[in-house]
């Protein structure tokens, strides 16, 4: 809401400057979002009367004007296409500097002297692009030599306020003036329209029937005859521009002006284009069609609120008029609509049609039905004054609106208790009275009558808010919340999430946050049907992800394309899985990680490529940190390398997988894992019990086993552990060899074994016995000890 301060002062007296008002209104709930000034103030800018125009002797496109600027007549050369003798125009005289830095000085233009410049709206900062110079009206008593800065209020401050949706009453100059009056303790001057009605009666030519009585509590119209279409007065144009609207013609401008002034949107129909002079307010039929003022044919749905005549729809109530009854040059009689519409209905229709207007954005917040007559009269007054209209007597009305009194009961102590204040009851009464409420008090109890312009006040807390904002939020003392603190700190899941993120970052993985939605195509091949967004911004964001794979893969690709090929990423985020019979999907927290490119290299060691075991090592590291041991089993997963993928399980339950993304999908190998986070909390609750350190020496033996390639290392390790006896305390694989020395289809695995007893020193024969058992056990898997 743009508020020109000079306009505001029509309704309230204040000597505060724009900055101070902005600050005071911000503190009471109307947030000032910026202060600007109207147009560009220019020195030596005066009204000039073009007395004579002659052709320029040396240039076809230029003319030489003799311009009366009050104190003298000066010669000005101009290229403006629209100058005529007798015109009043803004003139900048030498010595001035325009907003764009142009210095105005006496100069010769193609050999002819020129002492100034005629200005367009563009040069005065009043519009983006102007065709010709600004022509000032003849009939408003404007004299040559008058200061144009004053005339057009150039440089006058405009404050933009963000008005919260609960305060549609503040979407008007009067509403904002009322707020200023509350703060300053000054009375509000409402416009008191005076209309000199002609004897013809509006009711004789117009009939209003509200059929949709729920959706239109009050519909009023006035009829104005003999209107002459033309520009609106300069002051009105200037105020509209200042408030951010473009002047169009006197009739449109007047309806807009009254809307900005009072907050009540109005609509002007060409009364002679309304069949049988009957306005019907009704709901649209399915597929009814209306061509709105913006030239768009709109197909309507049942239930949309329409203004119609007996033959056709005329306007979308509260949103936009229709072309068929539009005001034109030939309009003789205007039917001026001032009505109140149900906010929900306006909002629904406006959203469904994707059509918003200044009017709809006000109606959908709920307007005061009491404004209807005031606004109609005010517009009638202005049409009479500035469009030469004759106002028919009477206002034609229909609708069920009845002024009803809203009364809210509260107590002074409730307000104090909620705000943490200790105000006297009298202070509270004073504040509530100031904002325009009628307060009766009885002991602690307050009975508050709410005026119709404050439709947002319905409950006790609304009154507390009024007290808070006028007393000043900054004046409410801070207090430490009382009550017991029952915090249990982080949950197990939150703890695990933090451990995972910190540990992964510490071993070189960088954390990502990627969109939860993606295109369905990128989930191709992965199991499960994704949850679909009904109104996505694009196909790229159409479904919720069922796996982190596409997002992490995309991150690797993005960086690959930007020549950052060596990456290690992780993301801890939810995936969304449709669950049978449930309205809402299951949301599962997952850890995803991706690894690609080279390992960290050093000046003396060329970096090798990362591989499966680097990523697996990271996962095992996380497992150790969380006191968990993962099991891995070869598996086939969609979009994964068939020979390089393992299911990851914990306590016999598969919680995810790890492997290489199928090489068909990637330029270079990308390793990926995705596991559920929730199962990882298990280790956190494990109680650690210290085990005594044995004083008996450990015995170390290395063994090498040769056997078939196809037997997984895990099986051998398990065989060794099973056969090694109770003194075998550690088994480490330290070498893997394949090659000519062991023969084709074979591999050699070297293990470091450690034996130790807590009771005694082990003898050689005991160790040999254990090794013999191991030898026998691995032989079952066709592995032999290698010397």
């Amino acid at each position, binding site marked *: 809401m743009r508020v020109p301060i000079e306009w505001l002062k029509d309704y309230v007296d204040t000597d505060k400057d724009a900055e101070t008002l902005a600050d005071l209104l911000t503190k009471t709930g109307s947030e000032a979002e910026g202060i600007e000034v109207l147009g560009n103030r220019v020195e030596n800018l005066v009204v000039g009367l073009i007395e004579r125009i002659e052709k320029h002797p040396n240039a076809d496109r230029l003319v030489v004007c003799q311009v009366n600027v009050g104190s003298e007549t000066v010669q000005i050369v101009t290229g403006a296409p629209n100058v005529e003798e007798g015109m009043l125009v803004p003139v900048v005289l030498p010595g001035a500097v325009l907003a764009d830095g142009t210095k105005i000085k006496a100069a010769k233009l193609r050999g002819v002297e020129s002492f100034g410049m005629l200005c367009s709206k563009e040069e005065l900062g009043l519009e983006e692009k102007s065709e010709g110079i600004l022509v000032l009206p003849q009939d408003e008593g404007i004299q040559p030599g008058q200061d144009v800065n004053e005339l057009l209020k150039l440089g006058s401050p405009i404050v933009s306020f963000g008005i919260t949706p609960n305060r549609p009453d503040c979407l008007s100059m009067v509403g904002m003036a009322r707020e200023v009056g509350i703060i300053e303790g000054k009375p509000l001057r409402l416009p008191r329209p005076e209309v000199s009605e002609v004897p013809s009666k509006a009711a004789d030519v117009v009939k209003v029937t509200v059929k949709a009585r729920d959706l239109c509590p009050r519909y009023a119209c006035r009829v104005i005859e003999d209107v002459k279409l033309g520009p609106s007065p300069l002051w009105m144009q200037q105020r509209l521009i200042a408030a951010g609207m473009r002047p169009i013609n006197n009739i449109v401008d007047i309806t807009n002006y009254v809307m900005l002034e009072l907050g009540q949107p109005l609509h002007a129909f060409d009364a002679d284009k309304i069949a049988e002079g009957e306005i019907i307010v009704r709901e649209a039929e399915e597929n009814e069609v209306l061509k709105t003022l913006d030239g768009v044919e709109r197909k309507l749905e049942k239930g949309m609120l329409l203004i119609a005549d007996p033959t056709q729809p005329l306007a979308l109530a509260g949103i936009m008029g229709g072309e068929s009854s539009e005001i034109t040059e030939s309009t003789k009689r205007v039917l001026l609509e001032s009505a109140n519409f149900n906010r929900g209905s306006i909002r629904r229709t406006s959203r469904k049609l994707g059509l918003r207007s200044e009017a709809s954005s006000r109606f959908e917040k709920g307007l005061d039905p009491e404004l209807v007559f005031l606004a109609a009269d005010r517009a009638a007054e202005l049409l009479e004054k500035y469009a030469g209209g004759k106002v028919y007597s009477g206002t034609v009305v229909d609708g069920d609106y009845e002024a009803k009194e809203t009364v809210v009961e509260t107590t002074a102590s409730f307000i104090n208790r909620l705000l943490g204040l200790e105000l006297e009851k009298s202070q509270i009464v004073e504040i509530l009275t100031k904002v325009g409420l009628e307060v009766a008090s009885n002991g602690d109890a307050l009975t508050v009558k709410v005026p119709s312009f404050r439709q947002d006040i319905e409950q006790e*807390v609304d009154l507390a808010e009024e007290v808070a904002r006028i007393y000043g939020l900054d004046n409410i003392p801070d207090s*430490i919340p009382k009550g017991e603190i029952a*915090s249990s700190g982080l949950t197990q899941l939150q703890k695990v999430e933090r451990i995972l*993120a910190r540990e992964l970052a510490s071993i070189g993985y960088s954390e990502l946050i990627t969109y939860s939605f993606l295109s369905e195509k990128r989930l191709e091949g992965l199991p499960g049907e994704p949850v679909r967004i009904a109104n996505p911004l694009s196909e790229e964001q159409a479904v919720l992800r069922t796996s982190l794979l596409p997002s992490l893969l995309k991150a690797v690709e993005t*960086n690959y394309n*930007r020549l950052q090929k060596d990456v290690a990423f992780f993301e801890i985020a939810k995936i969304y899985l449709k669950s049978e019979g449930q309205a809402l999907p299951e949301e599962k927290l997952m850890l995803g990680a991706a690894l690609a490119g080279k390992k960290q290299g050093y000046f003396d060691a060329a970096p090798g490529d990362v591989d499966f075991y680097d990523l697996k090592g990271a996962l095992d590291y996380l497992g150790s940190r969380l006191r968990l041991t993962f099991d891995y089993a070869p598996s086939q997963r969609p979009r994964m390398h068939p020979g390089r993928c393992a299911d990851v399980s914990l306590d016999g339950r598969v919680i995810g997988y790890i492997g290489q993304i199928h090489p068909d999908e990637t330029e270079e190998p990308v390793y990926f894992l995705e596991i559920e986070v929730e199962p990882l909390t298990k280790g956190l609750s494990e109680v650690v019990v210290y085990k005594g350190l044995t004083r008996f020496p450990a015995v170390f033996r290395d063994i090498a086993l040769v056997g078939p390639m196809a037997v997984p290392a895990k099986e051998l390790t398990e065989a060794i552990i099973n056969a090694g006896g109770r003194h075998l305390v550690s088994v480490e694989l330290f070498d893997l060899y394949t090659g000519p020395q062991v023969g084709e289809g074979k591999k050699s695995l070297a293990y470091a074994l450690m034996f130790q007893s807590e009771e005694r020193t082990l003898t050689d024969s005991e160790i040999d016995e254990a090794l013999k058992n191991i030898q026998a056990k691995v032989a079952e898997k066709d592995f032999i000890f290698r010397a």
Partner: protein
Amino acid sequence: MNENINKLREEVWLELEKIADLEALEKFRVKYLGKKGAITALLRSMGSLPKEERPLFGKAVNELSTEVEEKLEEKEAQLMEAKRARQLAEEALDVTLPGRAPRLGHRHPLKQVMEEIEEIFLNMGYTIADGREVEDDFHNFEALNIPKDHPSRDMQDTFWISSDTLIRTHTSSVQSRVMEKQDPPVRIIAPGRVYRCDDDVTHSPMFHQVEGLVVDKGITFGDLKWTLTVFIKALFGQERQVRFRPSYFPFTEPSCEVDVSCFVCNGKGCRLCKNTGWIEILGAGMVHPNVLKIAGYDTKVYTGFAFGLGIERIAMLRYGIDDIRLFYESDMRFLSQF
């Protein structure tokens, strides 16, 4: 005979002087002190002396022998030391070469800010609540006093799944979930992802918020002010000023927005604060009684406050980031700066 000794002594000293390495020193030892060495030979030659001269001669030779041994040890120590010094010199490294640092991993800037906020509230006794992202209309809107057709639904362009389900437009939905499950006192924050149909330099269709909710007996607006002032100062610095402005949210009444004095210009006015000296940080208010009622809380007994803020906004302000999309693009050149 003593002449012989003196001569030998001179010879020994001269030779010892010249020795420069341990090998030569060993040869020298053998030459003089070895079984066939010169000094040993002198001793042996004692037999050929008259008996009365022997003790004196023997003593002189022994003296020489001891002297030589001492010098030899001394020399040996010197040479050892020199050798060690040479060795160490050879081992010298170019200490300016880069170290073999493990690869550095980076926490996401949004997560860093989020955890910082979580810590502040954990220390104030709050619990972190988790909530659904795919929500129903009831928990995201209705239970928060935002009925259908409420104008503030426009402020939050919603991604719908169906006519009744959506992806949450704010973390405020966690308020209704928590109050549904739990009786007062409530003291939670709820960080997480939220979604709105909006996509430009300052708006992302997915972003993050933190919601806060406190409900207990006798909670006041003064409590809200204290809590948020402590929080904002903890996040932005103790020297910052905090300003409360009345505002509007459907689920709180009275409502306010909270500004922090600009940390670039200290309130003098600059581009960041759009010359106002203040930067808007969060929205808050006393929980609307309608919301408490829907949750089944006794509004005669319980009051509360709630607040919400956007993480991206805080991170953008803090790090001077001007394009919100950078957070989700996963570009290492961006991520590695944090």
